[in-house]
């Protein structure tokens, strides 16, 4: 019995930053890297299932990234996952969600898990596409934005609740194995102490290349490409305070100013 959880190390932006010279991303000096917020919840959900089953299940964490992303991987391992897999090749530097899903699909084929959890989206790019694409590539059922889950290792189906637009929710049964994209708030993620993260260095991490997975750089060519990243011009806002009369006169002033009067 095995649950595979895919995680991503995301960039948390400083409130003052500069763009990279090629204008296609933020200069890396201006963000700090961290485990994707959503992944805290997907990892926790896998661990809760494992613990409820009396630890009779293996939780495997997978990430695609260079060695800097070991931090995210170890944070997840420190929480109680059993082992990790990190896939990297320099040709993945510009990978989009679909390309990442192609890599992950090979890992899934290799690991044969009973269930795959992803975060509902990443908190930096927010495409919410990786889980969906992975399910498509595998031909597995997929449920997005899962906010409650009933599942025990070995079950043929899982019952889950999903958030829909307009405040609706739906309860659905899904055939396993499946890919579930986990929403924030499904549980209360545990904290990984720094000591735990350091000790997680002892846990096994497989470092795989594209070759190991039988992939070539061509086969994971991204489906899309970022052309430019920039901060759009922002409109101005002003909080008008004071008595009603003062507010009205200030408002009139602004209107006159904007109309060029």
């Amino acid at each position, binding site marked *: 019995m095995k649950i595979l959880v895919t995680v991503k190390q995301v960039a948390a932006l400083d*409130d*003052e930053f500069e763009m990279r010279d090629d204008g296609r991303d933020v200069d890396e000096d201006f963000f*700090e890297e961290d485990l994707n917020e959503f992944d805290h919840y997907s990892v926790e959900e896998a661990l809760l299932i494992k613990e409820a089953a009396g630890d009779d299940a293996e939780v495997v964490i997978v990430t695609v990234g260079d060695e800097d992303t070991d931090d995210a991987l170890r944070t997840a391992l420190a*929480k109680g996952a059993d082992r990790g897999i990190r896939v990297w090749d320099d040709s993945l530097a510009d990978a989009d969600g679909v390309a990442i899903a192609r890599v992950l699909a090979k890992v899934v084929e290799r690991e044969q898990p009973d269930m795959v959890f992803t975060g509902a989206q990443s908190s930096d790019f927010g495409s919410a596409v990786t889980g969906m694409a992975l399910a498509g590539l595998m031909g597995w059922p997929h449920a997005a934005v899962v906010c409650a889950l009933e599942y025990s290792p070995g079950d043929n189906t899982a019952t889950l609740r999903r958030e829909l637009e307009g405040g609706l929710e739906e309860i659905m049964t899904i055939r396993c194995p499946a890919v579930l994209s986990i929403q924030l708030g499904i549980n209360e993620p*545990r904290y*990984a*102490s720094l000591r735990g993260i*350091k000790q997680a260095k002892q846990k096994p991490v497989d470092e795989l290349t594209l070759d190991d997975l039988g992939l070539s750089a061509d086969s994971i060519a991204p489906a899309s490409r970022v052309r430019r990243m920039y901060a759009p011009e*922002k409109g101005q806002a002003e909080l008008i305070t004071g008595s009603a009369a003062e507010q009205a006169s200030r408002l009139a002033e602004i209107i006159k100013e904007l109309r060029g009067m």
Partner: protein
Amino acid sequence: MFSSDYDPENITRILFRDFPTWMLIVFYIVAVIAIGVFLYGVWAQIRKYRRGVRSGAWTPFWPRFRNMVGTVLSHRTVKRRARMAGSMHAWIFYGFTLLFIGTSLITLDQDITGPLGFHFWYGWFYLVFGIVMDVAGVALIVGLLYMMYRRKWLALPKLDYTRPDREPGDPDYDRSGYRREDWAFLWTLIIIAITGFLLEASRVVWLQNEAIVWDVRWHAPVGTAIAYVMMGLGLGPEGGGDLRMGLWWFHGILALTFIALVPYTKVMHIFTTLGSLMARDPEGKRRMPSVDVDAEHIGVSHFSDFTDKYLLQFDACTKCGKCHEACPARAGDYPLSPRDLVLTLRELANDTQWKSAPPAEPVRVIGEGVNMVRPETLWSCRTCAACIEICPVGIEHLPMIVEMRRALVEEGEFDPMLQPTLRSLQKSGNSLGESKRKRPRWTRKLDFEIKDARKEPVDVLWYVGDYASFDPRSQKVTIAFARILNAAGVSFGILYEDEQTAGNDVRRVGEEGLFQALAEANIELLDSCEFKTIVTTDPHTYNTIKNEYPEFGGNYTIEHASMMLERLIREGKIPTPVELDYRVTFHDPCHLGRINGDVEPPRQVMGQLGLDLVELPRNRDNSFCCGAGGGRIWLGDPPDTKKPAELRAAEAAGIGGLDVLVVNCPKCLNMMEDGVKGTGNEDNFRVMELIELVEEAMGLSDDPAPDEDDETASETAASA
């Protein structure tokens, strides 16, 4: 006085006089059983303590022993903040101890040296002995009567043992058993003492016709006085003899029962407190227990994780309630009382650790079960050290709490509000979720450049701290301090982006791995810089660098800002031309005043500024925490609690005509401003940092700061 007609060897009390042999046998059997029960109890308790992790807390033995003896004989800690009760306890202590020694001497003479042919209990020694015993008996009875009066009529809230962390109806809510035990203890002792005097009196009545007894009767003054009353009531020698026999047995059996029960009842505090006082860590309030972060597990989640010292301390608690009274969490109706925490652990120990074999499974101490410590109890603590400071018997509540928090942090089980804070600390070394880059941004508001201590030598390295760097209200104080140092011509620098929190609160919240990582990184950074001393405005930083960094190889001279200001003003480097005509009071920061004993420097500065200082009722070592410490500043306050800062603000409001409540810590500033607003006192008095008052007295505070709105606007644009 006795005439020289008597052979001094005959001036004594003949023990067991007129006892038939069977009575003697019965008495010795009872005595041996009582001593056996006593010894078994002592052994079983020691066995319980020895199941803990060895602490080595009793070495070096002799200095610790001397210290303990001094504390016990002076009753210094018992008298503190409870003059009358402490003195009366001293009377009981000395009365009881003398009587116990007296009885032991008789036993020695009768059963040990006597059979070897050596007697000493006769003649002058016997007569002086009699007077001393009577004085001791009176002291004991007076002390006990006062304690009865105190329990019955003073009805002190701290002597109510119901648990604040339980609801009525919970099986372990009611602790009325303790109350009954208290009374049984008082009554038993007083009856033993009174029957002792009656016994003495009945002997005088019984033997009134024997000149050798009658002539020296006034060497048992209390007994003889009672004897006259008995005789006045018509008691003759024969009746006196019968009374003596009856009382002898009653007094003897009661006293032996008392001795047998010592290790099983509150009487054990006679011994456990001695052990606890000896083991007491004088640094316990300043420095949290060190631990190997590479160990299999850290912290205390099970009984087997406690050290022998803490296991003994659970039994040393006398339930006096001084910590209960001092605790800010308790005062605010949080589910914590340090006393009850210790008693909870004592009860759980007695439930689970008493049997001859250790429990098969480790016994968990944190949880929701009967007599378990609840996590919310542990998270209520402010680590202000009020409990450890006042405990008369040296119990170290604060390190116990931190040890249990460590286990909770390892398990990842705690208030969800704390997680973002700890994650922020892991990522960027501050608790406010800000980036490293933003840390020195407050310096932009200065019209001069602060030296970069990483790049050039400075005299004074200023360790700014988290709240002082990021909190908007504290930043004003930080800027003021920078201007003061600049005006005083001090060569000072800061660590800019590379400074991380010193980790006082990180350690106290229980994230030991993170604390040690921060400490090591900070020490490495400090060691790479050239400076003479460190200064900080933050008492938390001050405490940790001063007392906890040496453990990791960081040995620095560090001053709190108040000390530096006092010196600079005294040396005339800071002119204070502006007269401040304020009536002020001062809120001592726990980590400066109580924990490090630095209560005078801030007061001296206030004196130098000519402020009219009116002390708060609770000041100096008895200061009342603002509620921020131990990570509580990162956590919310449940609705059914009272914020310690509001209790403190109300205390300040009790001082009439106050202009300013002076604080001397960034966290106190944050908390007390809320406390003053929360109690509706914002129109009555202001909260100001001592540093701001110095700035005002220097006439610096009118300097226009760069327009704050512009600054905000440009930041917004940059981040848009």
